[in-house]
């Protein structure tokens, strides 16, 4: 049980991928003062947590009660979505020029940091899956821990930036996406094999 919670925390952390966001966030907040930047990161993390918890809880309720979607369906769907995201992030850039351009216009604030940089569609479907699997209390704990870990990475982005360098950040983020792909394959295989057996 504890292992499963740890597993979910790390899966969620991998899809939130704050290390992958670092390059974008650092570039966009280059002109900010330290105080402004940390305020933005704090607010962004809180917003990301609210967003993730709200949509995961509502989404799970909706899917289960109204659409009658089972855990296996959800697992297969989450596997597919995560697999596509990981492929897209490895083969292309994580965020295309268009997506980044629209962010830049508004100047980076807490909202774009929370959505879509940290919490995107992949994080939301993972969130719904976690609620379905672990129940509400456990999943709230998982969300808080994963966001807290991401917040730590963003809060100390200067340290990480110095330590890893620009290329290091990119490489780590890409390697993480390969593992995310493996997790996605596992979801997909589990979902499909449950269909065949059931």
């Amino acid at each position, binding site marked *: 049980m504890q*292992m499963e919670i*740890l*597993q979910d925390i*790390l*899966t969620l952390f991998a899809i939130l991928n704050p290390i992958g966001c670092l390059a974008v966030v650092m570039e966009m907040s280059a002109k900010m003062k330290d105080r402004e930047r940390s305020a933005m990161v704090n607010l962004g993390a809180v917003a990301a947590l609210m967003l993730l918890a709200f949509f995961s809880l509502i989404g799970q309720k909706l899917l289960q009660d109204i659409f009658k979607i089972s855990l296996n369906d959800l697992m297969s769907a989450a596997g597919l979505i995560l*697999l596509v995201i*990981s*492929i897209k992030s*490895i*083969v*292309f*850039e994580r965020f295309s*020029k268009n997506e980044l351009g629209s962010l830049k216009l508004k100047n980076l604030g807490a909202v774009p940091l929370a959505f879509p940089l940290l919490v995107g569609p992949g994080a939301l479907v993972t969130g719904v899956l976690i609620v379905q699997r672990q129940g509400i209390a456990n999943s709230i704990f998982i969300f808080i821990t994963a966001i807290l870990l991401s917040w730590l990475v963003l809060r100390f982005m200067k340290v990480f930036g110095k330590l890893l360098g620009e*290329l290091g950040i*990119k*490489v780590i983020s*890409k*390697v993480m*996406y*390969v*593992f995310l*792909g*493996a*997790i*996605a*394959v*596992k979801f997909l*295989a589990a979902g499909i*094999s449950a269909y065949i057996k059931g």
Partner: protein
Amino acid sequence: MDWRSIIEDTVTLFAIVNPISGIPFFLEITKNHDSKTRHHAATTTALTGAAILLAFSFFGQVILEKVFKITLNDLKIAGGIVLLCISVISIIKNQGKNEHHGVSTAELSAVPLAFPLLVGPGSIVTSLLIFQRQPWFIAALIIAINSLLLWATLRLSAPIYKIIGDLGSKVFAKVMYILLAAIAVRFILTGIIAYFGKA
């Protein structure tokens, strides 16, 4: 110290990592660049490969199997799908200005060249076995030697350009992507077959 087993393990790891198989892709991604960028890319590949092998050998399997519950099969299938996508996209798309979709050469030389093409699930398992057989510093040394060999292989591949020329390397690139697709399919299939074998 048992020299023979050290040499044996070094050769085994070299055979699995198989740096020569990385040459075509390396030539492809560095084809429009000067020798400095190539040097940089080769270094990135060697360092990423060594880092991944070391990280996995020290705490890899525990994290993968206990925490994430992903096996090397999952990794094989996912890596295969990524490689397949890269090769299919590159075969279909006309190589224009925006050649690698804005992904830099150094990035490409880390993922997918270093991982999962060269240092893939197979080399991870091999290095885990080496770590079980040898004291850790010797195992680390073996990995370091291999990463040096990988670096040297990639560095020495540059003269191949001069022989095959510009047009030759373009044709070569297309053929190479077909080969890459075949390797990717083998990754995916062996992964899937292993799934069925387990059930």
